[in-house]
């Protein structure tokens, strides 16, 4: 099936099985390996991308359903001012350890802050509850997002 969508702000066109997972299409056809596979069933959030601004696990999205959608991955997001603030705050808060979950958390944070630019701690915890991290115990990730919401005031 022929599918058109906007990937990282550029129109793309593929001809593929519409049942393939968006995750596989992103990783295999577009070499976007910042999108990680942690569980393959929408539980861990390592493969989080934004579809129309909403954080979604790309492992449970058949690529046929994204026709004409705008898809943003870490590779597209990392050139933005919002990303730079998040990156700095993740570093300063110590929110990164093994890093496998980190791009997914960045995308979840972008989605959360877009909806709610000044979330409190509880809202942040709820906002990232779909992303698993086994290294940090989460508080340092929560701190990072809180710092970003303050330091990036006006960006979201």
């Amino acid at each position, binding site marked *: 099936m022929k599918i058109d969508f906007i990937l990282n702000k550029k129109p793309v066109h593929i001809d593929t099985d519409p049942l393939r997972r968006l995750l596989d299409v992103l*990783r295999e056809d577009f070499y*976007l*390996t*910042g*999108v*990680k*596979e*942690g*569980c*393959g*069933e929408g*539980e*861990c959030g*390592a493969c989080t991308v934004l579809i129309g601004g909403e954080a979604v696990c790309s492992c449970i999205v058949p690529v046929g359903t994204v026709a004409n959608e705008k898809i943003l*991955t*870490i*590779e597209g997001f*990392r050139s933005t001012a919002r*990303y730079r603030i*998040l*990156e700095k705050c*993740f*570093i300063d808060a*110590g929110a*990164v*350890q*093994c*890093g*496998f*979950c*980190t*791009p997914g958390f*960045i995308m979840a944070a972008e989605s959360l802050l877009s909806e709610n630019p000044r979330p409190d*701690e509880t809202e*942040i*915890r*709820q906002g*990232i*509850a*779909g*992303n*698993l*991290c*086994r*290294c*940090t*115990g*989460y*508080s*340092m*990730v*929560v701190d990072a997002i809180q710092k970003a919401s303050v330091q990036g005031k006006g960006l979201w």
Partner: protein
Amino acid sequence: MTNIRTPVERSDARIKINGKAEYVGDIRFEGMLYAKTLRSTRPRALIHSVEIPPIPEGYFIVDKHDVPGKNRVKIIADDMPFFSEDRVNYIGEPILLVVGPERETIAHILEAITVTYSDIEPVYTIEEAEKGSAPPLFGSDNLFASYEIVKGDPISAFSQASIRFEDIYRTGFQEHAYLEPQGAIGAYENGRVTVYGSMQCPYYVKNALIQGLGWAEDRIRVVQTTTGGAFGGKEEYPSLIAGHVAFAAIKAGSPVQLVFDRAEDVRFTTKRHPAIIRIASALDAQNRIIAMNMEIKLDAGAYAGLSEVVLQRAMFCSTGVYNIPNARVRGSAVATNNVFTGAFRGFGGPQATFAVEMHMHGLADRIGEDPLVFKRKHLLKKHDSTVTEGTIRQEVVLPALIEAVTGPSDYRGKLQRFQSTKGTVHRGIGLSVFLHGCAFTGSGEKDKIQAKVKLRKTRDKTVEILVSSVEMGQGPQTTLKKIVAHTLGIPLENVIYENPDTDRVPDSGPTVASRTVMIVGFLLKKVAEKMRESWNSAPEFELQERYEQPPFVQWDQQRFKGDAYPVYSWGTNVVEVEVDSLTWEVTVKGIWAAYDIGTPMDERIVRGQIEGGIAQGLGYATMEVMNSSEGRFMQESLFDYVIPTAVDLPNIHSTLIENEYEYGPFGAKCAGELPFVGAAPALASAVQHALGVPITRIPLTPDYLREVTQGED
């Protein structure tokens, strides 16, 4: 130069945040093929036949016939084959690989293969193994290891006791749940094999390949790829799959990638050992413990793996932080037809610490004493003797660590106030006091590992760290660099430390046992001091340093007598909970933690170790349930094996009390495993306080809590 404790930007942070870091599943080589494992569906059986239909060109079957050397994964006992020979011993045991260019075709080929088995009566649990109705899996007694330690004269102490108290403690399986599943790539070129993979121990993998290939070591190269969490799960297991991809690459003549999906990883890779621990204590007329008698049994699963060493660590910390003058500790690692259990953060310590802490709490309740007062009476002090009759040589700062958590948490106040709570929500507060022996057990560092490190000064005045220690999230690519930069007095940016490649780095030992900073870091400090002295001697040179045991260490590995560890790190935790007696759900309301890890090499990285370790430990005690039913795990994914999420835990209040160690770099001791060890007993004590019933088992499932509470009515 700033203080070494002061946090710096992690070397690996940016590349991980921006998604450019390449994990093993992100790597693609020209012509690379994929592999998938055909696994046993039987817990214990002889293999009659494996029928493989004709397969398309470009696809390969890789099995026991393709192991050029010895078909045994080198760990300790040489009992586990890379690929099954005539039998299988657990559900999921690898029989063969299907290798080829298309994953879908590989899946079709796997489905079409028929294995016929003839079943043998399996052994599913420690209890069944003890009944002995099924033939033994290992040796004649079905034990991978059994040991005994005797200190003093426990028999006469028990005969003089005024009170005797005994209970049995049980802990369950735990899954590592690192976010990056296991994976490796094998490549074969010009008569050499290279294995790239997610791993903790490049030289364990290399040694396993030497044995499996039967080749000279210079034909084998192992390269660690960015590793997405490990926690012990990538200590011994990668040796198995490294063999698989190496044999496959040789047969196919192309690079072969094997990356597990989550279900394979949850169902078929190593787990934390379930334990049954019986402790009996003898008290004198003044309510002081005069002796303990313990029995520790670990479910080791189908192969020996590292179980004997896990058992040793469990036994060596079995009396916890307490001065017990007379003790008998017996331990056994029992063979069962479960997946082989293995290394997991704490390595036997969490099971033993849970048991002894709950036992101390139970004893205090039995004699009507405040648990903390009772524990304080028995704390180890400098010059005291451990269960193996080793000497505590450092000042023990436990009294200060206890104050550091009981004060801010209002432990004493809440202990009183929470007792009057009514309704269905029960509040409780609990405390644990614990230690962790730093680095390898016994004479392991001196006799087995003999770590070597190298430092290379280059023409552009950068200095490269050449060690086999890996970054897996715990921070050595930052902390080890800090140690070298601080010692040489050069900027951190001038120190290089790449992922280890065995062609370039010496064997500085595995990345395990919280040994990296204390052992490898100390060697790096020593070699950096030498480099500083000879800095201007040449524009480019290399220096090497080799491990030397601190002169005071006395250890008898045959009798388990002496200093099981050169030094200990110590900790205290307070956990506050609410338990709802309608749903039996446990909610963590507060966590306070204090540690003596010597000097922290980076306060922010240490905080990450503390918080992550506590989160895993609280998961272990509560929601992380893994049941094996007839050799099959009931949990197959992160959907049914639940780990904590951001909404399950509150903020953690942690403090460090510095107590420098002479043989650690800048005074550092061990930190990686310690935070895990104390979390479960603190939480279980809080639940015991909330419900007023003895807790002797983790995980604290709603069923278990209902059962113990109603049993009391």
